C-alpha cells in the first residue's frame, strides 16, 4: 500500500461524495470558462463584422461635406500603386409598394468600377448602370423588394454649396429617383458596408457613381476614396495627396477677370472659408480679396433700386460709410456724390431664418461701368441666380418680390448680368456680410491665362488639404480596435456570474468539508498510526485535487453548454444588449486553458485552506478538548474593520447629503457596499468575541444561539451567503427602471418632451415658423426643438464597439433650461442653470460638452472633466470637455454642445436632423400622424420620448435581468450549500440530537431548534443585505425612477419565506432517521 493506492481506494470508496465535489468544481469552471468564451465570441463576432462592413477596405479618405474630383482616386492609386475606389455617399429614403413601405436612414452609395475590388468581387457593382440599384440584404428584406422591382428613392442632395449658405435655393435639396433593383448584396458582396463602428447592419443602396452624380446635378465630384492597402502608412498617403491635390479637388477654379488683366479665384462653395482664406491671403501674387453680396434694395430718398450685387473695392481708402456707385445706379436713384444711400440686405440664420439689416452710406463717387466697375466676374456663381436668363427666373434662397423688378432691371440684367452696382471697402463688406461660410467670394491674382499654372501652384503650396477638412483614416485598424476594445463580455459575464461563481466555490468548500467530516475518525486513526499530519494533509489534498481535476475537465464541457445557453438567450430574450443577428460562438483553446487554470487554482484554494483549518481544529480538539475560541486578535480586527467600513459608508452618505455632492448613484452604491461589509464584520466580531449569557433562563432561543456561537466560521458563511444574495436581489430589483414612469416630468430622461424624432435628410428650415408650417401642412398646436447632428458613431448602450468620437448634437441651452437631470457635475457646470454652461468656451478653443453619464462612463470609458478630441470642418482639433453627466436620457449615445459652438466648429453644416416635440399626450396620435405625413420625404422617424428612453432602459434592465438570473442561480447553489451546512451540522450533532431524544425532547422541538438556529442566521444575513442594498440604491428608491417599494418588500418577505421553507425541509429530512439513538450506545 502506497499513498497513491490509498488515494485511489479513497477515490473509489467515497465516489459519491467525490462526485458531488467534482460537480461543485465543474460549476465554478463552467462559469469562469463560459464567461471567457462569451467574451471571445462577442469579440470574434464584432471582428467578423469589421470584415463584413469594410470588405478589403483599409483606409478611407473623407472630405466632410465637401467634394474632391473623382480623378484624385486614380492619381493616388497610380502614385502609391495600390487599389482604390471613389464614391459619392449620401443618405435617403426608399419607398416601395406605392408608399406602403417607406424605409429611412439609408446610405445611398454611388460606387465606381473599382468598388468590386474593395468587395473582393469581379463583376458585381461594376455591372451597375443607368437607373439600376443594388440593395443590401437587410434593406431588401425591409422593403420586401426583389430583383426586377422598381423603387422610389428620395435622396439627400449633396450640394457643392452648403445648403444653408446665403442665396442658395433650398429647392431640390431632395432628389427623387426611380431605380430598378438589379441585385441583392449579401454579406459576401459587402452588403453590410458601413463606415460607422456598429454591429448593426447598415441599410445600403448602391448605384453607379455616374448615375448618382447625375442625380446630384454635378459630375466628377466625390466625397469618399477607399484604399485597400494594409501595409501602407498614413504619412505616405498624406504625401501623395499633397502631391496630387488640385484646385479642382479643393473646389476652386481660376478664370480671367473681365478685363483679362487679373486671375480670379472662386470657389464652388461661393463663400471661401476662413481657413482657406487665411492661406490664400498669404499666397504670392495675390492682388486683393473680394466679397460680393446680393442686397435687397438700395434707395435714396424716394428712389429705390431692387436686388443688386454690391462688391468690395480694393483700390481706394473707402471709409466705413462711404460707397461708390456706378452710373446706372446713380441715374436710377437720381443720386449725386455726397448724397446718402440706404441699403437693405438679408442675413441668414442657422435655419435659414432671414433677417433684414440696413446700412446707410454716403456716396463718395459715381463711376462708369468699365474696368473693375464693369467686371461681371465679381458676381459669384450662384446656381439659380447667376445662370438665370432674366430676373423673374431667379431661384434664390431668399424671397424675391417680382413686382418690384422693373423693366430697366431686366435690361440691366440682360446687359450686365450681376455686375455690381455699388462698391464698399473690404472691411465694411466683411463687417456686413461675412458669415460662417466665409468672408470672401473671390481672390484676385496678378497675371493672365498663361500664368494659371504658376498661380495654381502658388495657391496649392499654401492650401493644405488636411486643413480643409480632409481626413485620412485607417478605418480597418480603428474598427478592429473598436471591436477589440468594445464591451468586454468576458468581464461582464464573469461579473454578472460572480454570485454564481461564489455559490459554486462555497458549494465546493462545503462539499469537501462534508466529505472530511464523514471521515473524521479515519483521519484521527491515521494520525494514531503515526502518519505525520503533513503527510495526511498532502494525501487528502492530492485526493481533492484529483477530484478537482476531473471536475474542471467536466466544467470545460459544461462551459461550452453554458456558453450556448447564454448565446441562445442573447439571440432571443437578451437580444436587447447585442442588437445584431451575427453573434458567432468562438471557442479558443487559450480561453479553455485559462478557465481551466483559474478553476484549478480556485479549487486548490477551496480545498487546501479548509483542509488546513479542518485538520488543525480536529487535532486541537483531540489534544486539548478545545472547541471554540471566542476571542482573539481576529475579533479585534473584525471590530476595527467594521467600525472603519461603517463610518466610511455613513460618512460618504453624510458628505453627499450635506454638500449636495455629485457622486450620485455610484457613491451610494459604494456606501451600501461598505455598510454591508461593516455589518458582516460586526457579526463576525459578535460571534468571536461576545460571551453569551449563560444559565438561569436556559431556553430554546438560547440553545439556538449556543449553536451559532459554537462554529463562528460556519455561521458567518451562511450569513455572508444570504447577505450577498439579498443585497444582489434587492439592489438589482431597486435599480430596475420602470420604463414609462415620470416620463412627462421635465426632470426625467425625456426632458418632458412628448416626441423624439430624427430625419434621414436634414430639414433646413425652422419648423416653428408659421410660414414654414403652413407650407409643410403642419398645424400650430405644438412646438419643435431642432438640433443639428454631426456625423459620428453611436455611443449608446446599443453599440457594443468602443467609441471614441460619438456624434455631436448642437443644442440651444435656453431651450433646455430646467429640463433633464444631471447625475454628475463638474465645477465648470453652472449650478443654477447647468445648460447655460454650454455657451461658454475655454482657452485653446476647448468647448464644453454634456453627455449621458452612462455614455461617459461605459460607452466612452471616460469620466467627467475628460476631453474628447474631434476634427472640425477645417480638419483642426475640436476639443470637447465633458462638464456634466446626464441621468439616462433620450440623448444617450450623443455628446451635446451648444448650437453656437456647433456651427462654429461645423459652419457648413446645414439643417436639423434631430427634433424634440412639445405637446400633450392626448394629441400624440394626431401629432405623430401629421408630422409623418409632412416629413415623409425626409425619412421621418418619430417615437414617443418615453418609448425611446424605455428602449435604452430596457438594455439596462436586460443587464439587470441577466445579473438577477445568474444571481438567482447562485442563490440556488447557495441554498444547496445551506442544505449541506445544515446536514453537516446535524451529522456533527447526531449524538446531541440523540441525547435530546433520549431525555424526551420531542422531535418537533429539536427540528424547531435547528430551524430557529438557521433562521436566526438567515434573518441576520438577509437583514444586513437588505439594509445595505436599500442604502446602496437609495437614489433610485428616493428618486423618481418608479421603483416599486412594494416589490422590494415582497422580495424581502419572499427571501425570508423561501429561506424558512427550505430550512424546515432540510431539517425535517435530516432528522427523519429513526435509529439515531444508536449514536449513544456502546454496542
Amino acid at each position, binding site marked *: 500500500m502506497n499513498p497513491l493506492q490509498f488515494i485511489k481506494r479513497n477515490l473509489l470508496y467515497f465516489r459519491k461524495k467525490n462526485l458531488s465535489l467534482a460537480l461543485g468544481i465543474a460549476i465554478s469552471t463552467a462559469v469562469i470558462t463560459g464567461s471567457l468564451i462569451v467574451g471571445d465570441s462577442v469579440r470574434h463576432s464584432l471582428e467578423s463584422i469589421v470584415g463584413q462592413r469594410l470588405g478589403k477596405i483599409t483606409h478611407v479618405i473623407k472630405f466632410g461635406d465637401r467634394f474632391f474630383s473623382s480623378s484624385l482616386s486614380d492619381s493616388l492609386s497610380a502614385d502609391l500603386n495600390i487599389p482604390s475606389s471613389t464614391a459619392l455617399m449620401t443618405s435617403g429614403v426608399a419607398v416601395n409598394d406605392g408608399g406602403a413601405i417607406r424605409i429611412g436612414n439609408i446610405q445611398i452609395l454611388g460606387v465606381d468600377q473599382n468598388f468590386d475590388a474593395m468587395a473582393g468581387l469581379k463583376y458585381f457593382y461594376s455591372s451597375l448602370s443607368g437607373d439600376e440599384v443594388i440593395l443590401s440584404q437587410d434593406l431588401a428584406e425591409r422593403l420586401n423588394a426583389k430583383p426586377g422591382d422598381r423603387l422610389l428613392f428620395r435622396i439627400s442632395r449633396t450640394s457643392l454649396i452648403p445648403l444653408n449658405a446665403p442665396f442658395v435655393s433650398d429647392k431640390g435639396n431632395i432628389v427623387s429617383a426611380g431605380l430598378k433593383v438589379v441585385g441583392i448584396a449579401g454579406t459576401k458582396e459587402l452588403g453590410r458596408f458601413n463606415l460607422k463602428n456598429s454591429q448593426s447592419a447598415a441599410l445600403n443602396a448602391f448605384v453607379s457613381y455616374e448615375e448618382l452624380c447625375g442625380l446630384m446635378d454635378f459630375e466628377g465630384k466625390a466625397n469618399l476614396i477607399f484604399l485597400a492597402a494594409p501595409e501602407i502608412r498614413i504619412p505616405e498617403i498624406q504625401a501623395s495627396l499633397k502631391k496630387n491635390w488640385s484646385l479642382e479637388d479643393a473646389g476652386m477654379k481660376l478664370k480671367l477677370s473681365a478685363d483679362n488683366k487679373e486671375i480670379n479665384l472662386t470657389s464652388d462653395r461661393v463663400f471661401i472659408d476662413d481657413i482657406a482664406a487665411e492661406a490664400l491671403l498669404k499666397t504670392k501674387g495675390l492682388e486683393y480679396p473680394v466679397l460680393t453680396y446680393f442686397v435687397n434694395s438700395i434707395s435714396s430718398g424716394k428712389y429705390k433700386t431692387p436686388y443688386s450685387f454690391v462688391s468690395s473695392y480694393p483700390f481706394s481708402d473707402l471709409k466705413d460709410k462711404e460707397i461708390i456707385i456706378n452710373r446706372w445706379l446713380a441715374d436710377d436713384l437720381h443720386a449725386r456724390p455726397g448724397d446718402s444711400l440706404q441699403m437693405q440686405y438679408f442675413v441668414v440664420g442657422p435655419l435659414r431664418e432671414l433677417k433684414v439689416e440696413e446700412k446707410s452710406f454716403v456716396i463718395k463717387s459715381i463711376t462708369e461701368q468699365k474696368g473693375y466697375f464693369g467686371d461681371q466676374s465679381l458676381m459669384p456663381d450662384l446656381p439659380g441666380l447667376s445662370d438665370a436668363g432674366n430676373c423673374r427666373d431667379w431661384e434664390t434662397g431668399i424671397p424675391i418680390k417680382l413686382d418690384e423688378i422693373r423693366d430697366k432691371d431686366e435690361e440691366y440684367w440682360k446687359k450686365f448680368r450681376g455686375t455690381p452696382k455699388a462698391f464698399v471697402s473690404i472691411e465694411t463688406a466683411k463687417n456686413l456680410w461675412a458669415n460662417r461660410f466665409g468672408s470672401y467670394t473671390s481672390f484676385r491674382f496678378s497675371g493672365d491665362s498663361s500664368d494659371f499654372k504658376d498661380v495654381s501652384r502658388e495657391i496649392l503650396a499654401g492650401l493644405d488639404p488636411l486643413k480643409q477638412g480632409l481626413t485620412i483614416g485607417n478605418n480597418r485598424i480603428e474598427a478592429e480596435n473598436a471591436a477589440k476594445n468594445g464591451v468586454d463580455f468576458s468581464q461582464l459575464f464573469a461579473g454578472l456570474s460572480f454570485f454564481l461563481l461564489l455559490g459554486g466555490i462555497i458549494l465546493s468548500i462545503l462539499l469537501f468539508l462534508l466529505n472530511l467530516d464523514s471521515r473524521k475518525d479515519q483521519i484521527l486513526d491515521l494520525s494514531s498510526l503515526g502518519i505525520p499530519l503533513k503527510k495526511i494533509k498532502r494525501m487528502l489534498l492530492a485526493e481533492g485535487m484529483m477530484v478537482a481535476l476531473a471536475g474542471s475537465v467536466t466544467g470545460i464541457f459544461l462551459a461550452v453548454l453554458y456558453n450556448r445557453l447564454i448565446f441562445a438567450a442573447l439571440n432571443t430574450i437578451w437580444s436587447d444588449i447585442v442588437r445584431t443577428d451575427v453573434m458567432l460562438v468562438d471557442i479558443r483553446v487559450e480561453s479553455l486553458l485559462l478557465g481551466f487554470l483559474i478553476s484549478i487554482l480556485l479549487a486548490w484554494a477551496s480545498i487546501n485552506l479548509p483542509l488546513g483549518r479542518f485538520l488543525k481544529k480536529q487535532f486541537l480538539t483531540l489534544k486539548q478538548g478545545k*472547541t471554540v475560541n471566542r476571542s482573539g486578535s481576529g475579533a479585534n480586527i473584525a471590530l476595527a474593520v467594521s467600525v472603519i467600513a461603517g463610518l466610511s459608508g455613513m460618512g460618504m452618505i453624510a458628505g453627499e447629503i450635506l454638500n449636495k455632492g455629485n457622486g450620485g448613484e455610484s457613491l451610494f452604491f459604494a456606501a451600501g457596499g461598505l455598510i454591508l461589509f461593516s455589518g458582516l464584520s460586526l457579526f463576525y466580531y459578535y460571534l468571536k468575541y461576545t460571551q453569551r449569557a*449563560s444559565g438561569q433562563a*436556559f431556553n430554546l432561543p438560547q440553545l439556538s444561539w*449556543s449553536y451559532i456561537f459554537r462554529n463562528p466560521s460556519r455561521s458567518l458563511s451562511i450569513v455572508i451567503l444570504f447577505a450577498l444574495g439579498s443585497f444582489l436581489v434587492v439592489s438589482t430589483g431597486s435599480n430596475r427602471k420602470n420604463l414609462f414612469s415620470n416620463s412627462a416630468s421635465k426632470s426625467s430622461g425625456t426632458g418632458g418632451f412628448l416626441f423624439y424624432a430624427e430625419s434621414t435628410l436634414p430639414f433646413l428650415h425652422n419648423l416653428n415658423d408659421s410660414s414654414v408650417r403652413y407650407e409643410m401642412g403642419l398645424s400650430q398646436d405644438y412646438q419643435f426643438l431642432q438640433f443639428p447632428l454631426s456625423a459620428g458613431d453611436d455611443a449608446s448602450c446599443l453599440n457594443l464597439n468602443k467609441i471614441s468620437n460619438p456624434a455631436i448634437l448642437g443644442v440651444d441651452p435656453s431651450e433646455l433650461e430646467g429640463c433633464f437631470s444631471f447625475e454628475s457635475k463638474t465645477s465648470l457646470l453652472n449650478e443654477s442653470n447647468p445648460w447655460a454652461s454650454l455657451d461658454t468656451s475655454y482657452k485653446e478653443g476647448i468647448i464644453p460638452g454634456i453627455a449621458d453619464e452612462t455614455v461617459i462612463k461605459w460607452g466612452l470609458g471616460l469620466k467627467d472633466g475628460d476631453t474628447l478630441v474631434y476634427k472640425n470642418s477645417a480638419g483642426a482639433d475640436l476639443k470637447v470637455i465633458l462638464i456634466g453627466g446626464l441621468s439616462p436620457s433620450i440623448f444617450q449615445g450623443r455628446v451635446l454642445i451648444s448650437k453656437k459652438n456647433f456651427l462654429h466648429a461645423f459652419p457648413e453644416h446645414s439643417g436639423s436632423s434631430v427634433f424634440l416635440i412639445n405637446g400633450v399626450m392626448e394629441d400624440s396620435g394626431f401629432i405623430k400622424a401629421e408630422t409623418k405625413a409632412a416629413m415623409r420625404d425626409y425619412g421621418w422617424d418619430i417615437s414617443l420620448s418615453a418609448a425611446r428612453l424605455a428602449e435604452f432602459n430596457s438594455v439596462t434592465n436586460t443587464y439587470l435581468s441577466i445579473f438577477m438570473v445568474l444571481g438567482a442561480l447562485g442563490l440556488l447553489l447557495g441554498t444547496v450549500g445551506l442544505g449541506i451546512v445544515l446536514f453537516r451540522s446535524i451529522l456533527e450533532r447526531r449524538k446531541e440530537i440523540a*441525547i435530546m431524544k433520549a*431525555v424526551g*425532547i420531542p422531535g418537533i422541538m429539536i427540528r424547531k431548534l435547528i430551524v430557529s438556529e438557521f433562521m436566526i442566521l438567515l434573518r441576520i444575513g438577509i437583514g444586513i443585505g437588505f439594509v445595505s442594498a436599500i442604502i446602496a440604491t437609495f437614489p433610485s428608491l428616493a428618486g423618481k425612477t418608479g421603483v416599486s417599494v412594494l416589490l422590494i418588500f415582497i422580495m424581502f418577505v419572499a427571501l425570508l419565506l423561501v429561506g424558512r421553507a427550505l430550512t424546515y425541509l432540510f431539517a425535517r429530512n435530516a432528522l427523519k432517521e429513526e*435509529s439515531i439513538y444508536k449514536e449513544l*450506545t*456502546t454496542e
Partner: protein
Amino acid sequence: MLTLNSVSKSFGTPGEINYRLVLDNLSFHMEKGESIAILGPSGSGKTSLLNIIGSLDFPDAGELLFRDKNLRTYSNSELENFRNKEIGFVFQQHHLLPQCTLLENVLLPSLLVKDKDEKLAILNRAEELLKRMGIWEHRDKIPGKMSGGECQRAALVRAIINKPSLLLADEPSGALDKKNAGNIADLLNELNESDGLSILLVTHSQDLAERMGKIYQLIDGKLEPDTAS
C-alpha cells in the same frame, strides 16, 4: 413497575448471514426502588434491551408494561413525555453539548417546561444535585474544560433532573478511570438508597454490577439471575 413479557428483538433479515436474534422471548420484572445490573458479553443485546425499556427502540414481539401500561399503546408524544418524566438515561459517554455550560446541559430536559415556578424549582434542584455531585462550582464551565468524571456526574444530574422513576445506565463508568468509576457507583447507590430511584444498568464491570441490588446475566437472548453473586 416494569414488566417485559416475551420480548424478542432481532437485527438483519431472517435466513441471511447478518441475522441476529438478540432478545429471545425474554421476560423480566422490576419493582420500584430496585437497583439491577445486567451483565453480558459484547453484542449480547444489553443495550438493545435498555433502549427498548427506554422507548428508544421497539421489540419485534412481546410487550413492555410500565406501571401496567403497555408502551406500544403510547403515541409519539406520550413516549417523549414518558422519556422526559419517567426515564433518566446515562451513557458510557457523557454526551454533554460542548457549547453549553454544565448548568445548561443539566437543564436540557427542562427545555419543555414553560411554567416559571416549575423552572425555578428545576433550577433549585439542579443546584442541589450539582452540589451533591460536587461540581456546583464548575456550573458555568463548558464540558471541554472539565474532566471526564465531572462530565459524567453532570450527565447523571441531567438524567435525574426531572425526578424520573427509572434510571437507565448504559456502561456509565465505561469511559472512566477506576476512581471516577467508583465515585459514579457511589452516587448511583446513594440515589437508589436515599431517593428511592430505581436503577437498571447494563455493564461489563463486575465491580459496578456488584454495587447493585440484583444482577442478571443476558445469555442467548434471555435474562438469568446471576447465581455467582
